[in-house]
């Protein structure tokens, strides 16, 4: 191949430094600052404002997956009785807890407390229960009722009551107090991070798209792990400037963009570049996805009660809403990003994301005429990936798209 299929971003080094610093810093002496393990959809602004250091087992799971070190950790969890059918982030995380000597960086530092929010799935409840039992540390679960229809006022009141309970829980377990001023500042920073990330993603409406799915997946780490910090804001400013330059100069993420695709679900971390390169071979670029857009909810500031804003932002995330909501959102993305086809990763690890994909695909294709491909695999467990079968299905799908052009 004459041209490299993956065009590296200049900010890649800065991203690497930022994430390395995060993983180093959480291991440094913390001078009494408590450390919490939190889920990707937990209201981290409250923790940051209280001086609690947040680490993300899901991000760590993705990291282990991308380094192809997740399978041995999954096996360590399976040896303790955890079924191989369970979520591979959970198995990777529990494996790193049980056998830290096998784990990249020796696993995550031990938590002082745990915060899990079920706005992404029910798995996190059981996973964090197991971590809490192992380390004998307190666990708070923020319960965000699933929204099949509308976000009802009694659900809002319930989530607000829990946020208040969560603050009391953190105060009780860490001895720290929440300053509303610091919270407002953290929320402002988080919103700024979210805005920048949304703007970067929106730049991919350009033809050719300046970014492909692996770029989005690699660069999403700070929006999850460092949301609400100066470092994340700085990084996304630089990334945005670089992506804007690409758009201005007509530089695409892949050598030749003929097909524009939408991606649904978590990445196949263990085959991240290889997998998307199968599509690059057909001149297909993933210009938008549903997963990295999961961190695009700004917390309303100013007018309403801040706690209500936080409750609404976290309770109404993409994965906590109905399949119809998700179908509509994807149809809108298909129009806005001028997409030719969509690929859904039917992820054995993630039931809430995956079980409804057949219904969504049917609805979208009826609504837009755009075809979709469903590929069954797993985000971290490479044992569930059959490369040749996947390539054959991609080939057939790309032939369908070619006929439509």
């Amino acid at each position: 191949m004459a041209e490299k299929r993956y065009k590296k971003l200049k900010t890649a080094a800065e991203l690497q430094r930022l994430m390395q610093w995060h993983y180093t810093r959480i291991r440094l002496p913390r001078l009494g600052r408590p450390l919490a393990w939190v889920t990707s959809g937990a209201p981290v602004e409250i923790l940051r404002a209280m001086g609690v250091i947040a680490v993300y087992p899901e991000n760590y799971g993705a990291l282990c997956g991308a380094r192809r070190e997740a399978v041995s950790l999954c096996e360590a969890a399976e040896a303790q009785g955890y079924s191989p059918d369970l979520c591979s982030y959970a198995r990777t995380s529990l494996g790193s807890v049980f056998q830290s000597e096998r784990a990249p960086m020796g696993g995550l530092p031990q938590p002082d407390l745990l915060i899990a929010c079920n706005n992404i799935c029910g798995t996190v409840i059981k996973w964090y229960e197991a971590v809490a039992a192992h380390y004998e540390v307190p666990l708070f679960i923020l319960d965000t009722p699933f929204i099949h229809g509308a976000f009802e006022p009694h659900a809002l009141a319930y989530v607000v009551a829990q946020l208040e309970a969560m603050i009391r829980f953190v105060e009780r377990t860490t001895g720290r107090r929440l300053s509303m001023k610091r919270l407002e500042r953290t929320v402002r920073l988080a919103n700024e991070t979210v805005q920048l990330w949304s703007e970067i993603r929106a730049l991919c409406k350009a033809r050719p798209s300046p970014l492909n799915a692996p770029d989005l997946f690699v660069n999403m780490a700070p929006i999850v792990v460092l949301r609400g910090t100066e470092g994340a804001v700085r990084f996304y400013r630089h990334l945005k400037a670089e992506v804007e330059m690409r758009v201005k100069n007509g530089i695409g993420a892949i050598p030749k963009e003929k097909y524009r695709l939408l991606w649904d679900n978590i990445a196949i971390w263990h085959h991240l570049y290889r997998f998307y390169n199968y599509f690059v071979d057909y001149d297909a670029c993933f210009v938008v996805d549903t997963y990295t857009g999961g961190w695009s909810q700004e917390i309303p500031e100013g007018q309403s009660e801040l706690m209500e804003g936080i409750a609404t932002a976290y309770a109404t995330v993409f994965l906590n809403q109905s399949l119809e909501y998700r179908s509509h959102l994807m149809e809108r993305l298909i129009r806005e990003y001028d997409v030719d086809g969509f690929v859904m990763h039917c992820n054995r690890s993630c039931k809430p994301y995956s079980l409804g994909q057949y219904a969504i695909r049917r609805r979208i294709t009826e609504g837009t005429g755009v075809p979709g491909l469903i590929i069954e695999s797993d985000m971290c467990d490479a044992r569930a990936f059959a490369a040749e079968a996947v390539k054959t299905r991609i080939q057939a799908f790309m032939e369908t798209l070619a006929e439509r052009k």
Partner: protein
Amino acid sequence: MYCVVQVREPLLGDQIQWDWNSLAHPCKDWQTRYPTKRAFGYLCTYSPIELLHAAGFVPVRLVQGSGQVALANAHLPSFSCALARMVTERLLSGALDCLSGLLVVHTCDTMQCVADIWHMADPPFPLVTFSLPTVLSNVGARDYLLAELHRLAAVLESDFGAPVTEDALRTSIALYNEQRRLLATLYEHRRAFTVEQFWTLVLSGMVTPVEEHNVLLQSVLQSVEEKKEAVRQGPAVILVGAILDDPTIPVIVHELGGQVVWDDLCTGSRYFDVLVDETQEPFGALADRYLKRVPCPTKHDDANPRAEHLLSLVHRTGAQGVVFVLPKFCEPHAFDYVLLSKALANEGVPHLWIETDLTAPIGQLRTRIQAFIELLRGS
């Protein structure tokens, strides 16, 4: 469902028969058997069936059953649990068309998804969702649950023309409490029945009108007291799991010389575990029952009472072992299995783990159960 049990005829234990395949097919003969009654489907023990009943419906439980999955394959991936796939299959094939509505309670990720999948498949009846709190011990959980119960009552009135009055709700609560008491009594007298008869009596209550089932239970329990209960020997076990809608496993246990003395199953003791307080305001009383129950694995309770509950069942019933019957791809149960099996091991209680799916390999199952019972005999 088609139950051969006829309440108008004198009932004795050995006359109770049951077409097991019909349990999963409540619509079969519904019109002829209950021409004036409207069936409302539900799946889980956290469904407020008293509300459905008070609105004039017969709550009918949907279970897994057995059969081929064909249509559902275009709606669900292979890693969905058998309950989700089988109910989807029957819903798509029209086998549930007698239902006037279907209530899906938010419990696990799978139920959350199938509620929407079924809704998007355009069934000939409306689908109603009910979001139970996941952390029942949470601050605000009771207020939220109460509001959700009132919302459900409002939906029954607006979308089904079936209002719920407080008086009707009190009557329904009393009827279901009676059923719970009778089932608890039946559990104490289970030795008077064959295993098939016992499970027939338990499960038929989930698919027949409660009034009818209560009469049936009263009648068989009356005859029990006159009968001498069979003394059974052999290792006693407790079954733990989700849906057990056919008696294969308990039958095998008995055939091999063991006995099931109690269970922690959604289709067993978890169906009747706590009574609703009849002296209280009825909506609040319903909410409180959910808060009082030992939570199922989809719920979180800071006190983590499931292990303690299982151990107390073991001690109370004198069981020597525990048999887990867990559906493949069921995350909540698979996670809890690890914590529960450790708690059992700490107390020196042996356990057997059985994973169920669409089909059960009976021969292998028998061998494993046999080995387990022999282990219990030796211990």
